[in-house]
């Protein structure tokens, strides 16, 4: 019999309205994955399309993994322990199919080119959530996937999230600012 899988999988809970825009998550992510500060190589990117309506944008681990099924070179696979999408850099041909397949257009190319980057949940201990909790903002924090929540809904385009947040913060003025 194979090793028992953990019952719960981690998820980075995102409480957008609490995001301060400090982008310490991008610093932490790029330090972890690149060994240096490199915001555009970070697997979480904070979109600031309307000031105040900051959107930390990262993989939501959809239940049906449209990115994986769209990949023509079998470069993407699911880590069974964490549920994260793992990119095989050797196999990735940087075609962008996964970006277009993602309902939130979340993956993006590594700035060096040649491969896509997607959140790997840091193997179950996401650094972005750690720093945000440490800073006391709690815009990102580590939770566990629950069957009562549909996480697919979080694979959402940052423009749409921004518009909602802008209206939430600024009311009617938010409509105009997020046009």
């Amino acid at each position, binding site marked *: 019999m194979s090793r028992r899988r953990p019952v719960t999988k981690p998820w980075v809970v995102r409480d957008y309205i609490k995001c301060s825009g*400090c982008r310490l998550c991008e610093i932490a992510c790029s330090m972890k994955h690149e060994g240096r*500060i490199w915001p555009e190589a970070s697997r979480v990117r904070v979109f600031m399309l309307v000031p105040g309506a900051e959107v930390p944008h990262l993989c939501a681990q959809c239940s049906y993994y449209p990115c994986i099924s769209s990949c023509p070179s079998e470069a993407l696979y699911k880590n069974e322990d964490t549920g994260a999408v793992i990119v095989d850099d050797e196999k990735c041909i*940087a075609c962008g199919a996964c970006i277009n397949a993602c309902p939130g257009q979340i*993956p*993006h190319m590594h700035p060096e080119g040649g491969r896509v980057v997607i959140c790997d949940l840091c193997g179950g201990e996401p650094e972005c959530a750690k720093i945000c909790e440490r800073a006391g903002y709690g815009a990102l924090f580590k939770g566990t996937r629950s069957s009562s929540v549909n996480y697919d809904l979080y694979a959402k385009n940052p423009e749409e999230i921004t518009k909602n947040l802008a209206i939430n913060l600024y009311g009617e*003025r938010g409509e105009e600012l997020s046009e």
Partner: protein
Amino acid sequence: MTLGYNGKIAEVDLTEGKVSEYWPDEKILKDYVGGRGLGVKILWDKLGGKWRSVDPLGPENLLLALTGPLTGYVSGTRICVTGKSPLSNGIVGSTASGEFPLELKTAGYDGVIVTGRAENPVYLLITDDGAEIRDASKLWGMDGKETIKTLNREIRELLKERNPSFGLWKEPGMIYTGPAGENLVRNAAVMEKWSHACGYGGYGAVMGSKNLKALVAKGTGPLPEIAHPELLQALLDETYDAAFGNPQRNFWGTGAMGYSTGAQSSAEPVRNWQEEWHDERSIGVINFETRNWVKRYWSDYGCTRACMKLAVVKTGPFKGAITDNPDYELQAYCGTNLGIYDPDGVVYMSSVIDDLGHSGINGANTIGFAAELFQRGILNKEDLDGIEPVWGDAKAMGEMAYLIAERRAMGDILAEGTYRAAKAISEIKGVDAMQYAVHFKGIEVGAHGIRTGKHSPYLGYALSVQGGDHTSRPRPPMSEARSTMGDTMVVCTMGVPRLENIIWRYLKVVTGWELSQEDWINVNGRRIVQIQRAVILLGGPDVVWDPEIDDDNPPRWYEPLPSGPFKGSAPDRATLMEERKTAYADLGWDSRGIPSSKELRKLGLHDVDEVLEQLRT
């Protein structure tokens, strides 16, 4: 290549429409590092020999936007904007937080130098592919919120077109000027985000004079290579522990001071400094936080402080007004200084100032000055195109901000800043308006009074090389060198507790250089101050300051405080003039306030010494 730097400053000649690259040698970098220090050095080298004849609003002036090697590392990443100031005719290192410096750095640049004047409105776009001058005709006249919205959309579409396979493009970072700067309002700010301002110095007007709407950057690269990458994470962790250790520190930002600086300290401008005390509990921070703040912690890239708060007016005549905080300075200048004590009114006034690209301190100082002239019957509503700026009337004060930004009626004169407006109005009206002008060497003063003698040195502003700038004042034993550190490293001095203990370690990890706080106070910082003193004394072309007269407080600050716990308090001018002699010696200046030959040569500033000879004879 020098570690911590990209090794590239974009040099843009708007007259010729050309972009090239500039890079100083390593010795200059080691001495002057970046931001204010490097800006002062570049300005001196390029313009020092002909300083007095350079018109700050002419094509010959330079507009610099500089980062430093610590950009992106030390909490509170800022950009330093500088040039010859149209207010002081000297140099101000004017900084603001935001995303622009990080984007510039990740696009492979350390700064931008702009010279000349474009024929039509333009903006500069900097990406991984280089710097390009682009048409800004449709942006001209736009307020801050429209400018950001339009440029975000335009640049994201452009980058998508150029790199369709990248995935979603984030927004660029930018600094820009609002309608006030476009119309050469002399104390206009260079803006970042909606509400962050490089406020002191009048560099918004310098951008306007160059037909330059914005500097915009979007980079995708990493920060440049550093000397000791293996030590970086530990230093970041130490910073985080220090910064997050006291949650209350970040809770109110500086906004908590709006009530206490007036009610307890008596050091807050009230109705153009006629008083410095108030007991208006209505502007207590609890009202802003419960009524207006929609986000308690609001930051820019890399910030560990989040002193900014997002404020919105939700109801009433000012519904829809948005600003940050307002922080202490704007609660004071857009609140108490204009007699506005209603939180919605203060948020509204701050938002009008932001939108127009006025400086919240400097522009609002001029509005307060005008309101006092109105109170005294020196200006009437005909002068002001029908506006009656009665203390406390936020709507009328907002209209004044438009009058000045659009240079309508007497707004055309007020647009020259408080000092120059006072001179002109004195002549036009046959009165002494200068007694109501609260400025130092043309730079309207920050919202921190001195008259109680308890909170600030009496001669701090009078001897500052940045005039009324509250962030750069000599402190006893009289030295302004300490104040140059934050602007030169281009970091926020409030982001990290005990910054002076940690910053030199960051500098070593990033650049490999060994520099100490002591070196900074005695040599590097002092050198920057002496060059700034030299150029502010050279001045010109429209005004030359006389240390005998201008190294002094404005007349208003010798009037005894009329109210509050420090009622009757004011400095004694004769005593201060005696103290000034000692201060000059501490500062390395001769008995007439000119940096001494010995001091300049000791710092290796022989060229500055030679130019100053003309003032000594």
